């Protein structure tokens, strides 16, 4: 098996050899079919997204009239419409504001809590940890109506902070969980040495501990961003005009004259952009991050 792999990979994929040194290829047991598998899987992932991109660059007449794999009548009008109309692009701004707020709040409260869980044992710690996790399991549908009433009664309805706080419901437990995993990997001796050296707890936490788990914080931030960015049910329930997220704005394309497919596709493409940017920045931590620090 391993022997055939060497020649197969070398023969079929000469380009690969320049990237990976042959020694590595020998060590890994890798059927040459893996390139095919990956290629098929990535095509499966990209095809629907490509189709959306394709549609966003067509005029409505072309979308409905002809069927083609690439835009014949290339147009950027759909994007122009979104980026010049405040009622459209404010949706993106609103979404970004509450997502960033949520990420900041979640991390700020999760960091000390995760430290406590990873370092100390105290009364009810295990139960508390599971109770926190149960909030991650709470179906947003259960909370939609109570949230609406709660935030209306305290005058926060249709504000960014309301959505940010509501998303804390599932992001705080997740952030605690991820950070706890990363913090467990830091030896306790480091804390003890710092205390002997005369560091106070806040100073130690900021100057020494935080840099040590920087990748964990990045990963937690990524997850908070991700789950807050993709959530719609709560953010739509809690907003009407001023803080309306882009995902809810998209429903506007369904008008009396039918669906404006081109604009809908362009809006969809634009919601993918922030995610793609975030992924690009954290690409080296993704693998470890998805394991929530538990590898």
């Amino acid at each position: 098996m391993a022997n055939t792999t060497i020649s197969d990979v070398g023969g079929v994929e000469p380009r690969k050899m320049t990237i990976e040194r042959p020694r590595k290829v020998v060590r890994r047991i890798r059927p040459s079919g893996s390139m095919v598998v990956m290629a098929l899987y990535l095509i499966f992932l990209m095809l629907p997204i490509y189709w959306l991109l394709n549609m966003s660059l067509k005029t409505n007449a072309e979308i409905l009239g002809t069927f083609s794999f690439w835009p014949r009548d290339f147009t950027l009008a759909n994007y122009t419409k979104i980026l010049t109309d405040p009622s459209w692009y404010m949706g993106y701004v609103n979404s970004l504001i509450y997502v960033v707020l949520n990420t900041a709040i979640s991390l700020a409260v999760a960091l000390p809590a995760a430290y406590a869980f990873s370092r100390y044992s105290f009364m009810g710690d295990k139960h508390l940890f599971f109770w926190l996790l149960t909030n991650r399991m709470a179906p947003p549908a259960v909370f939609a109506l109570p949230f609406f009433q709660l935030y209306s009664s305290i005058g926060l309805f249709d504000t960014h902070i309301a959505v940010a706080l509501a998303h804390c419901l599932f992001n705080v437990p997740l952030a605690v969980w991820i950070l706890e995993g990363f913090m467990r990997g830091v030896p306790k001796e480091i804390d003890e040495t710092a205390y002997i050296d005369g560091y106070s707890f806040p100073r130690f936490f900021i100057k020494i501990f935080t840099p040590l788990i920087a990748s964990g914080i990045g990963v937690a931030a990524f997850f908070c961003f991700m789950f807050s960015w993709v959530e719609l049910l709560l953010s739509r329930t809690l907003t009407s005009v001023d803080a309306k997220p882009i995902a809810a704005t998209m429903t506007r394309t369904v008008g009396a004259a039918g669906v404006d497919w081109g604009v809908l596709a362009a809006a969809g493409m634009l919601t993918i952009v922030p995610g793609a940017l975030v992924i690009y920045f954290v690409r080296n931590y993704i693998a470890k991050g998805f394991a929530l620090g538990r590898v």
Partner: protein
Amino acid sequence: MNKTVNQKAWFLILPVLVLVAFSAVIPLMTVVNYSVQDTFGNNQFFWAGLDWFDDMLHSERMWNALGRQLMFSGIILAIQIPLGIFVALNMPKKGFWSSFCLVVMSLPLLIPWNVVGTIWQIFGRVDIGLLGYTLDAIGIDYNYTQNTLAAWITVIVMDVWHWTSLVALLAFAGLRSIPDAYYQAAKIDQASRWAVFRFIELPKIAGVLMIAILLRFMDSFMIYTEPFVVTGGGPGNATTFLSIDLVKMALGQFDLGPAAAFSLMYFLTIMAISWVFYTVMTTIDKREGK
């Protein structure tokens, strides 16, 4: 790790407690409140005891939704977990292509859920979607708004498209942490590829796989937006999962009492099943920690 006993650690947890109490306990108590009361409107409520729970337990509608939900979660776990592991085993381990695969695979995870729905709604349309058009062209009768089977297949393929990468990335992270010495030992023993997988890779990624199963179970059990956008719960009630049914009941018909009782039972079900996963997971963690 040996943990120090320190009751003052509670103070570090306090911010989380306050925040979660505000955003979880208060709303949850509102739900509990509704679940035991009835109303004639005008904000006049009176005690109804456990009637709503009794009603919901005998409601065919809820059991049907639960059945569909369990079937959906079961099917997507059965597809996504093996497929995710398979993809992870085939991913390039290092270099540019590895990063490339990671980035492309994470992409579906960061698309807002209703956009995921929109993408598949368009993709599956017979007139303007690639998938629908192609299937129609080769003579398969495919219409996800009319045909129950087509609707189910569309929703499941969409979920596989959306979330398999999460399983794959978790499994990949687990695989990467296996020291090379294990593979070398396997090679000396002339272990088959299957034996390497069964006796080295699978046990080593068991921990992260449990996380994957837990996350996938929780999220698939609460799925709302994607199927709602694609099928709207139809045709008929064929893809009305628990959350869709609940929102219909609470916000659509404003049946607060039954909806609240439904909510609580829904939440308890998901918690009970997750608790089992969580217990298994922490047991694995402990065993590895030794």
